[in-house]
């Protein structure tokens, strides 16, 4: 049975952002249906559908809504449209081509969570998208989908767009809330979780654009339809992005659970590598989730038992919420794969990744602030041809001592910063070592002397003895 796209059904439909076009094939019917139910029934429906958050963490939306305190008076819904994970652009497509699908999702989620005001926190760089969405909101307001007594249900909801100022960390839910409140956008300590105390100290739900865009379809097509798509634990459709030197980079909708190989080589997806190159690295979930080895490595003789310790091709990884962990990835993330071909120096990849996190860390946690910076500095040194084998160990050590997983940071940015670095160093250690060997024996010492003679003579023991003179 061929899969019929729902989230992207209006891509390439002319004038798809208009309310009339959206309504012409069943738009806002899901909302109408929801508004006839009790809010808690909608929550239950979403729980049954097992709709897992598309923003990165994959947390079931219905369960998240269930954390809201039952006796609340005010609830806010924050729509996370900050999409700033590097190779990710699926939310952008939704907003550009089908803003009303998002708005309908907001209406349904708002109703289910008894939200009074919905804020769409939008990435600052989305200028055109802002105008498209604002126009859609105006249209929807005029048509009575927002405002007072929506569709005669007695439910009131207002919707505003708040534009960010260009910080990755503002996509983190509490960072988003702080920024929305007009403060410096940096994450809060949890608990309290936003569901209990979020924006303006009130219970708040934060959901990704795509998560919300799924809601109308759950209501119109039913839970069965939704759970019939995807794998056992990961239900529903997903917008996959693929970028890099593939023949057809872009965003494609598929039921959750296609393999990474399919995403790159599938006829409906990337259609293979340009110039017939082989894949060296894939970062399949945005940068933060880690890296897979590409098909320039030999096939795993035992494909059902992936072994991240062995240098095997890992493209058979299934891109759903759970299989990725078998390949030592952090999670599915945004399901946006960036493909690096065989002829790219692995050190370049490392520099690129570490730079991003060093520049985007908000700077409050020691590990994240200093750790991301040191990883970037070390990566630069490696690339400059002055690396040392011990640098690789240091990178692994830093990346392990960073992030929420060991409980050492406030938000997940530092996990996301450490994970791909550790993956790269561990999975591509041979190449790194080879590059270092090519440098010449005293390259590191020479370079350090050149850049910073004082550091070379530094009295810091560990640094001098063990590392400069291996």
């Amino acid at each position: 049975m061929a899969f019929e796209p729902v989230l992207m059904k209006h891509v390439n439909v002319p004038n798809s952002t208009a309310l009339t076009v959206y309504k012409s094939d069943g738009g806002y019917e899901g909302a109408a249906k929801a508004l006839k139910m009790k809010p808690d029934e909608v929550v239950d429906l979403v729980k049954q559908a097992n709709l897992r958050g598309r923003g990165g963490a994959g947390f079931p939306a219905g369960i998240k809504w269930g954390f809201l305190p039952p006796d609340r008076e005010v609830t806010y819904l924050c729509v996370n449209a900050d999409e700033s994970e590097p190779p990710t652009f699926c939310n952008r497509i939704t907003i550009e081509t089908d803003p009303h699908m998002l708005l309908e999702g907001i209406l349904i989620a708002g109703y289910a969570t008894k939200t009074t005001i919905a804020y769409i926190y939008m990435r600052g760089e989305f200028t055109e998208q802002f105008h498209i969405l604002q126009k859609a909101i105006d249209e929807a307001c005029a048509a009575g989908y927002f405002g007072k007594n929506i569709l005669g249900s007695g439910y009131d909801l207002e919707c505003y767009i708040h534009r960010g100022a260009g910080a990755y960390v503002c996509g983190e839910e509490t960072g988003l809330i702080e920024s929305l409140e007009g403060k410096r956008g940096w994450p809060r300590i949890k608990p309290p979780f936003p569901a209990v105390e979020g924006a303006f100290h009130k219970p708040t739900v934060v959901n990704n654009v795509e998560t919300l865009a799924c809601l109308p379809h759950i209501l119109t097509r039913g839970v069965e339809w939704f759970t019939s798509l995807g794998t056992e634990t990961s239900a529903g459709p997903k917008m996959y992005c693929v970028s890099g030197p593939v023949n057809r980079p872009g965003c494609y909708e598929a039921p959750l659970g296609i393999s990474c190989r399919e995403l790159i080589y599938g006829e409906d997806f990337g259609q293979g590598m340009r110039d017939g190159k082989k894949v060296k690295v894939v970062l399949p979930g945005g940068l933060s989730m880690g890296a897979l080895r590409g098909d320039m490595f030999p096939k795993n003789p035992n494909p059902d038992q992936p072994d991240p310790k062995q240098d095997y091709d890992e493209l058979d990884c299934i891109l759903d919420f759970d299989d990725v962990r078998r390949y030592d990835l952090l999670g599915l993330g945004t399901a946006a794969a960036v493909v690096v071909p065989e002829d790219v120096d692995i050190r370049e990849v490392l520099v690129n990744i570490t730079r991003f996190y060093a520049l985007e860390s908000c700077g409050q946690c020691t590990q994240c602030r200093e750790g991301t910076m040191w990883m970037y500095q070390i990566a630069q040194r490696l690339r400059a041809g002055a690396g040392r084998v011990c640098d690789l160990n240091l990178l692994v050590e830093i990346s392990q001592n960073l992030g929420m997983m060991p409980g050492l940071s406030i938000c997940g940015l530092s996990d996301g910063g450490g994970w791909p670095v550790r993956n790269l160093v561990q999975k591509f250690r041979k190449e790194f070592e080879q590059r270092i060997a090519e440098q010449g024996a005293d390259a590191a010492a020479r370079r350090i002397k050149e850049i910073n003679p004082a550091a070379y003579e530094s009295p810091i023991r560990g640094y001098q003895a063990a590392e400069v003179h291996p």
Partner: protein
Amino acid sequence: MSPRKTRLRKMEINHREVSFPEGVTVLRAAELNDVYIPSLCSHKDLTPFGGCRMCIVEIEGMRGYPLACSTVAAEGMKVLTDTAAVREMRKEILQLILSEHPASCLICDEKTECRENQFTIRKAGVTTGCQNCPNDGQCELQEVVEKVGLTDIEYPVYYRGYEAEHDDPFFDRDYNMCILCGRCVRMCQEVRGTGVLAFKFRGPLAQIGPAFAKSHVEAGCEFCGACVSVCPTGALADKVSKWDGQPDGFELSTCPFCGLGCQIELYHKDGRLSKVHPNLDPVVNDGQLCVRGRFSLPEATHHHTRARKPMLRRGKYFREVTWNEALDDVAEKLKGLKPADFLMVVSGDLTNESLYTAQKFVRTCLKSNSIDSTARDLLPGGPGLWAKLFSLPISIKGLREADAIIAVGLDSRFYFSVAGVEIRHALKDGAALITIDPRDSNLARYTNYWLQPTPGQEGAVLKAIANNIRRATDFSPRGAAGKDIAKKTGVDKVLLEEAIGALSAGEHLAVLLGPTVFEYNANEDLVDALLKLAGRKNTSFLPLYNGANTRGVLELGALGEVLPGVAKAKGQGLSLADVISSRAKPKVLYLVGEVPFFERPDCDYIIAQDIYYPPFEIDAFLPAASFAEAEGTLTNVEGRVQELVQIEDLPDGAVAGFMRPDWYIFSRLAERLNSREFKYKSARAVLKEISKTVPGYPAKPNRKPRRLASKAKLPVEKRKAPVAGTGPYLLIAEPAGFGHRGIDLSSKVEGLEELALEEGFRLNPDDLQKLQIEPGENIAISINKLTVTGPTKADAECPHGAIYYYRPVALGGLEQRANLEPLYRLRASPVKVKARAAKATGKKAKKKAASRKIPMAASTL
């Protein structure tokens, strides 16, 4: 809000059962049970930040390493604070912190030898290592490194290369040393409510400072030093004591600069006062201070112009003499004086002991009531009114405990900041604040209701509130009363009604009054309102006045008509006003810690007993001990008798000087006048005598608040009717400046001078434009026949049509502003005036200079 009863709970820390009060964090629970958990970013007054990550622990049932500083302790929790894994992790974290802290010598092998070889003289903030950090030896970071046992770091130390910031007064900032713990930011934001500091940029570029590259002065810094006090590193450091090194110790004392009487820790080094830190005193200041208490003490006593030796005029020369010579000479002059020939003027900043001895000296040795104090000016309305006010329930902490606060006319940025902090605490707990202030003060910025009357009408607004507070619903803005009040005071009537409603909902009410409102001429309304409110249950007051021991002056009878214990004296001596208005011409004038003139008044013999010379010729100078050099007590606004400790006790000498406590000097003079009643061995002995003669005073400083209970019927002064004046502008005097013992502190404390608060006539920028005056240009103000000229300052906080000026509470050190003296003598506020741009050129300028010669003119108004 009564203090919540906290229940004790039990938990296990490192396999030991311990108890803790409900609601505290794991960190606090451990601290209470003497378990050390390293921490760098947490602080008792601040919300958890969770940034430094030093406080990680293991808690059974929790994933990873939760933070002790942000995890609330719970019954039955099992915490391990010192496992091998945690220790390892902490070392790792600390290394990362140190990798951006240019202090590798923290962990250097050579550190002990290095320290010995480090003594070089340096001019400016050198920041390349802990040895050169001003915080060396007193640094929390050093302590944590020691305790964590870090001996090595694997990273090269990255120097950020920021330029050290020296531009603002009082403290230097070198963010190369900063570990981004955010304490200063949270302190400034959460406790001080100032929000000067913020994090700028992000990631490894993150830095602390005012946003948009403003200076601290521009950003509205109060220079309270709270950020400096909580900084765990040497990034922030007092300018004055920066390179003093590790202090030898500290003594708990009382701030000698205002009536709040904050508790301070005086740090000393080699027998000299080095710096001041706030004490975590629970009843007055709770770890907070204002710019005066925090930063001004060392300079106020160590300034190079400090007068340290007894001096006498001998013919043409004013020369150094021995104490005996000086005392003999002065005693000789005082012998056989008629009451009308003598006046002693004492400062309201003297200790209780000195004030008491002063009045006793005048009354027993000179047999007159010719003693007066400038404190009279600081208590406008006279002793009768203030005796009444001091009998009200006065409380500083009342602000924090209140559900509703009325603040009348105070900007707490530089004055009485601690009261401002208390208000912000109350606001955080949900109290309602109503400010009555024509000016946009820092309190008005936080307020729920800002009632903005025309200047001078604050009392009327307060009265309207007092009369209607219980029945907010009846107070209809359409009713005649409401309309009248709105019309009379210029306050929005709907807002007034809402404010009254909000007040009526609160149970505990606190009323705070800034010093300016007492200054107004027609303030019967104010007094009525206060007395009316005094009848209300659960109401506390905080009337603020300048001077540290002004209340002591009243209670100890250092005014001619008042005897110790606020009893009425028989017969009155000379008063200062008599001398200023030339109604009286005493032969001998004895100025004790007071400089009430710009120029030498017409007297035969002037004795000054002070810590600085007055700006005019005198005949005898007796060097008094400053707050750091003598012990004693001060009476704060609540009546607490608080201790001032002696911190400097250097042997007499040419450099250290020959200063003596005031009470001691009076006693030696009394002996020379054959009195036997001054055989005090110490200040404590004087206090003992006070406790016998003045009801309520303790024999030892006990810091208990006292309500004044005086039976004497002192007449409440009828306030003079407002001076009519004509013109479109209202001129308002604000009693201000940083006075101490008659001198304006800004003439001794460099930083205060830099703030230049008192300069100029402040007008709304719109008014300046209307008058076609650029800020800084001169304005001529005509009050009836008197015209004064002075520079202007644009101040958006001033209401339209008003001209504010600071009437200095101390004239000493203000020579350059002598031409404004007529205004300082003016006791009319607010007064209608005319104003125009003054182009002082040629002839006119000369004329202006001539007008200086008529300083008494204003008092005839």
